[in-house]
């Protein structure tokens, strides 16, 4: 927390949790999808469903999916923008269970890829992404993040940490989650700095991993 978190962020109103946080969830999902989203099915939970309309939460989520940052004055126009860019979307109310009241489920489709994420806007524009494609995660978008999907076998963590150590990139957090023993696993690595492009490429070339995704830190804009 610094002075510019208190005198800031610069954002489009009205609510840091219902608007700015919603934009950041959309933006996180877009970056994870890594291609232009063509279809979005959005389930609004709790307070996002109850007071989201008046706070512009649906517009904010769309804005993020379209790549706008929380301080972009086109956020109120994001429905029109979605139409222009060929993003087909649908909103519904959804009960995600005993989770934060400001939560959302995004099901996205882009060219040759799909993604489902569950995330919450936890206050002050900060977010918590807690499920990606069925894997439990705990990501806030504040760090450059690498996500790897692989069959649960010994050695995956060692390989990743060796490559990062070689590039002298410090790991802020590293968490692996699996569906079951010997099943599919997802490793989420949050980094202290942006890795050089070679690092992601070398991870992609390894036989260990079926999928390697990189998401830059979201920042707050302004």
């Amino acid at each position, binding site marked *: 927390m610094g002075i510019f978190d208190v005198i800031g962020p610069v954002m489009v109103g*009205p609510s840091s949790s219902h608007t700015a946080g919603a934009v950041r969830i959309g933006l996180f999902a877009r970056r994870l999808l890594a291609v232009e989203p063509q279809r979005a099915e959005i389930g609004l939970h709790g307070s996002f469903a109850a007071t989201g309309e008046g706070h512009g939460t649906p517009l904010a989520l769309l804005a993020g999916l379209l790549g706008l940052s929380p301080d972009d004055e086109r956020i109120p126009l994001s429905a029109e923008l979605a139409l222009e860019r060929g993003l087909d979307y649908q909103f519904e109310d959804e009960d995600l269970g005993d989770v934060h009241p400001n939560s959302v489920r995004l099901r996205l489709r882009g060219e040759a890829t799909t993604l489902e994420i569950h995330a919450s806007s936890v206050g002050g524009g900060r977010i918590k992404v807690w499920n990606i494609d069925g894997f439990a995660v705990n990501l806030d978008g504040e760090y450059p993040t690498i996500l790897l999907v692989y069959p649960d076998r010994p050695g995956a963590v060692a390989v990743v940490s060796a490559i990062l150590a070689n590039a002298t990139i410090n790991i802020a957090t590293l968490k692996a989650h699996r569906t079951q023993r010997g099943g599919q696993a997802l490793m989420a690595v949050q980094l202290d700095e942006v890795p050089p492009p070679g690092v992601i490429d070398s991870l992609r070339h390894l036989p260990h991993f079926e999928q390697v995704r990189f998401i830059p830190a979201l920042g707050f804009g302004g």
Partner: protein
Amino acid sequence: MNAITPREGTLEAALLAAHERRVPLSDIFLDQEIQASGRLREDLCALMRTRIAVMRHSLQRGLASPQRSRSGLIDGGAHRLIEWSGDGHGLLGAAFTKLLASALAVAEVNACMGRVVAAPTAGSCGVMPAAIFTVAEERNVPEEALVRAFFTAGGIGMVIEKLASLSGAEGGCQAEVGSASAMAAGGIVEMLGGSPDQVCAAVSFSLANVMGLICDPVLGLVEEPCVRRNALGALNAVASAEMALAGIPSLFKADKVIETMGKVGRRLPEEFRETARGGLALLQPEADKS
């Protein structure tokens, strides 16, 4: 002097440092930020100037054209106030009306999905620009002193975040509009040459004045009564700054008042903490009768 070293991150610690170095509190807070961020002083000042520019822009937008929210609860209040006062109707002169209208303007722009600086929150974004800019204009304060005022304000906000809360969901409106008032009041006192002790007195007065103020947003939206509470906050900031500058002492240390605000906030029933389940939020808004 007291032999006990004050806890880091408190106003007491900042005050002690300011006294020892004989500098204003903005220097202490700026140096802390340089240390924590590893960035240069001039970069931080430049960033603050861009924040100030965004505040000015939202203020001008809210005064220039009537802002209407999606819910219909906000319908150009700032614009109406300025139009009306133009004919000399203002009860306490133009500057007073300007103060109120500026707070409404920024808060209305926020409610209507315009761009603002959340300072400290989106819901209380009208307080600081209204109070600090209006006083700076009235007293012809140079830009550099204005930038410093925002560092003082930001430093105060960080202390409040540490010792209490800046969130309506945690502490009610006192934690948002109350904190914004305290930040603005402290900034104004330094901007007009008040001592660090007077800055802290202004912080104490501002929070004491709205101790216990609940957060009861109608329909759960940041509109009613939030927008007018921003005007109250701006008024509270200027009043507190003026009383502190006149030398009225605070009977309590600012840190203690901040901690008390935090305690009161935690004891507020959940109905009064942004849930829209208590207070004015239970009333049915009536149609505009103007």
